């Protein structure tokens, strides 16, 4: 009995009322979910329709749901931190709890909120936009999602079981080494990110092949929609950057688990090696998430200004050059760590160079709007507000890249303000814009515009109120990752303002939740499939798109092909006769991705606690799943013409 008690008190995190509250609410939620599913007999439905699906649209929806939940968790973390910092000498969070919270906040926001939201949009939009019926590897796609899911679960568990990581979102050794972090938190970090990272890598491969090989006939590379281009650029960056992360985390694991000496301070280890490696992934990573946002803004600007995107070719060039240049700037994250003047100068210059293609894009968007008939819908408002925000964020970035000046800004609140400006103003706003824009394509109804505008204003005003003061706090000497400060420092008033801004954004989030709930309840079905009067192929099919996307594969002749088709129709030119329907080739559902990822989770959990009785069955399960899959040959089927005809007739309201 006593040993059980002892075990439980080490296994579960205890002694903090906040965490106890979380434990209770997690327990209650789980009971509630199990109860509801059983009561309504929905287990079979859940398994057949969602857990085993290989339909890219459903996978996309699951990514979006998870990422909204993670935005909530990351946001709560943020508000806890801001509450702690609101006044000098606050005693709301303890120092070590604060460390855990900024670490999990950073990891969750970037890896478990921004990445899955981005992957969700890839999944929902890309095949539709290029006129394809599926992604190149639907099975792998499902596997990617479930790896992300179980990786994120593992990471999130650390909060209530065993203890959270606390060495920052990039886990620098020696702090993250065994001596600096003896608990299990850092192991959760390694395995949570590792498992989901493998999923990201596979998504990168999947979408590159999809985009390069599965475009509708006639869609040359230079006719691809801009979001597709940005996805391609992002995925190329993924497959070049994520392998570095995989190895870096693996080496950290070797140090912690097997007592190796890659990054230790003794026996010849070299912690600086880790910092170089992690930023060789970390810097490209921020471009991985921002490039698709640029693509989204491009689509939205041309849709709502009713004009072709200005400077298509320069936009493509800018995307590609940013994704390449992002690999040559990593050392700007540690100018102060003694690399010497020449090295610093090199990285300062490469960093500043990135401002050029970025500037090109900003002008392209502005020129697209110039003399356009702009419609101020919510997606368009997010886009417009992004421009000044990103310009400021970009300029403070250039300030940070001036190596000598960085000795002043480094790790100060100035930096915090800068990167939130680009991450919130660029990435988060961009993905919100994309989510609102493509929402009707996903679910067949638009989100409520009024509530969306409330959310928009709260987020925007909150953003400036929260982060502008932080630039000044940084210049006043307040450093990041500081859990409290003295009254004498004089940082109190600005911090209080900043906290108010944080809560405004929190209310903005609540409005978004309300917006979604309200729209689900009072939705007006979109019967046109094209509620925004869009330009690209995804708007040419009904919403939500049928399982097979396109009954007959379209042939493309222009850049904004659907727009051109509508123009032709308006001019009275009849459509070319649609080709006859044919049976459609589709992949079969499979439970293997879910099961296999779950085994990864089991193995990861075992590694975290060094429990071989979890590790071995986990890894064996993974291997067996792979072999079973390899021996499966009967993995697809055909949808008969009759069924396609019936579906189309139903979706298009009777006219076949």
């Amino acid at each position: 009995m006593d040993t059980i008690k002892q075990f439980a008190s080490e296994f579960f995190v205890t002694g903090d009322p906040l965490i106890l509250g979380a434990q209770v609410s997690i327990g209650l939620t789980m009971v509630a979910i199990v109860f509801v599913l059983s009561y309504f007999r929905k287990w079979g439905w859940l398994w057949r329709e969602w857990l085993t699906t290989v339909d890219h649209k459903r996978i996309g929806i699951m990514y979006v749901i998870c990422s909204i939940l993670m935005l909530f968790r990351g946001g709560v973390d943020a508000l806890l931190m801001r509450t702690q910092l609101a006044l000098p000498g606050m005693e709301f969070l303890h120092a070590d709890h604060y460390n855990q919270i900024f670490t999990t906040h950073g990891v969750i926001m970037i890896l478990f909120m921004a990445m899955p939201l981005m992957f969700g949009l890839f999944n929902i939009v890309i095949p539709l936009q290029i006129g394809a019926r599926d992604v190149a590897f639907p099975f792998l796609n499902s596997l990617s999602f479930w790896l992300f899911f179980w990786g994120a679960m593992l990471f999130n568990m650390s909060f209530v079981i065993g203890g959270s990581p606390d060495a920052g979102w990039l886990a620098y050794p020696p702090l993250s080494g065994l001596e600096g972090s003896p608990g299990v938190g850092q192991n959760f970090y390694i395995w949570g990110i590792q498992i989901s990272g493998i999923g990201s890598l596979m998504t990168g491969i999947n979408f590159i092949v999809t985009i390069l090989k599965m475009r509708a006939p006639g869609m040359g590379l230079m006719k691809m929609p801009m979001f597709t281009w940005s996805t391609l650029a992002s995925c190329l960056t993924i497959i070049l950057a994520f392998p570095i992360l995989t190895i870096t985390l693996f080496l950290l694991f070797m140090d912690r688990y097997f007592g190796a000496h890659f990054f230790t301070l003794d026996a010849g280890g070299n912690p600086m090696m880790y910092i170089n490696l992690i930023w060789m992934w970390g810097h490209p990573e921020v471009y991985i998430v921002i490039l698709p946002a640029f693509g989204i803004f491009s689509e939205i600007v041309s849709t709502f200004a009713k004009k072709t995107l200005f400077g298509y070719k320069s936009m493509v060039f800018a995307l590609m050059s940013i994704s390449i240049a992002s690999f040559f700037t990593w050392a700007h994250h540690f100018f102060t760590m003694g690399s010497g003047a020449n090295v610093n100068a090199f990285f300062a210059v490469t960093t500043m160079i990135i401002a050029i293609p970025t500037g090109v894009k900003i002008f392209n968007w502005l020129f697209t709007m110039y003399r356009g008939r702009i419609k101020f819908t919510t997606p368009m408002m997010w886009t417009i507000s992004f421009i000044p925000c990103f310009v400021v964020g970009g300029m403070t970035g250039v300030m940070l890249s001036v190596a000598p000046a960085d000795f002043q800004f480094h790790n100060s609140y100035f930096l915090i303000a800068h990167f939130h400006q680009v991450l919130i103003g660029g990435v988060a706003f961009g993905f919100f814009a994309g989510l609102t824009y493509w929402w009707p394509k996903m679910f067949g109804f638009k989100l409520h515009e009024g509530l969306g505008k409330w959310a928009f204003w709260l987020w925007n005003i909150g953003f400036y109120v929260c982060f502008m003061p932080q630039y000044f706090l940084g210049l006043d000497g307040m450093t990041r990752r500081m859990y409290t400060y003295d009254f004498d420092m004089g940082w109190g008033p600005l911090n209080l303002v900043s906290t108010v801004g944080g809560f405004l954004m929190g209310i903005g989030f609540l409005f978004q939740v309300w917006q979604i709930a309200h729209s689900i309840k009072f939705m007006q079905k979109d019967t046109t499939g094209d509620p925004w009067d869009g330009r690209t192929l995804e708007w040419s099919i009904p919403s939500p798109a049928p399982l097979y996307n396109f009954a007959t594969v379209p042939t493309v002749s222009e850049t904004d092909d659907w727009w051109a088709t509508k123009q032709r129709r308006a001019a009275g030119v009849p459509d070319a006769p649609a080709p006859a329907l044919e049976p459609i080739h589709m992949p079969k559902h499979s439970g293997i991705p879910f099961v296999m990822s779950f085994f990864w989770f089991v193995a990861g959990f075992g590694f975290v606690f060094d429990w071989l009785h979890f590790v071995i069955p986990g890894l064996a399960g993974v291997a067996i799943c792979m072999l079973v899959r390899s021996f499966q040959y009967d993995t697809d089927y055909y949808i008969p013409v009759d069924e396609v005809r019936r579906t189309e007739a139903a979706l298009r309201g009777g006219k076949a």
Partner: protein
Amino acid sequence: MAATHTHGAHHEHADHGHHDQEGLKMFGFWLFLITDVIMFATLFATYVVLRNNTAGGPTGEELFNIPIVIASTFILLTSSFTSGLAVLSMQQGRLKGLIGWLAVTAVLGAAFIGLELYEFVHMVHEGATLQTSAFLSAFFTLVGAHGLHVTIGLVWMIGLMLQLRRRGITPVTERKVNVLSLYWHFLDAVWIFLFTVVYLMGVM
């Protein structure tokens, strides 16, 4: 629908959404290989940075047993060659030859792994372990990562031989054999680098 223009005969295939599945998979595998190249490149970079950090422990020069390494190099090179012969048999439609050459390749691969394990065990007995120094951590991890790849390749090869016995040469099994042989050649190329950077430069 979008405008239809008269198409040439060449893309009948893509027209109806029946993409060449095997071709897609082959392309995907090439991309996977790129990611694997980067993983190895990262490990190599780490090794090169740490190779002189022996922290008073044994150096490569003292540890490496060059005759054994040369033997394993020959074995692996030969296995790459026999895997090529397997593909050749497949192209001539000879199932027996294909399976036979794959079996020879697997045996050679297993011999390679055997020698590597022997080398590792030997080193550990001499007190040169992963924990001894940064150099040895990097050595065991880099060489071990390659060995792990070879081992996975072996399991895969055995699985594939079973599938070939059951299904014969079909477009699907053909693609699988091509992918496997690509993977095997890739491991060979990585080993050449390993041999040069780790062993030759280690004893020079």
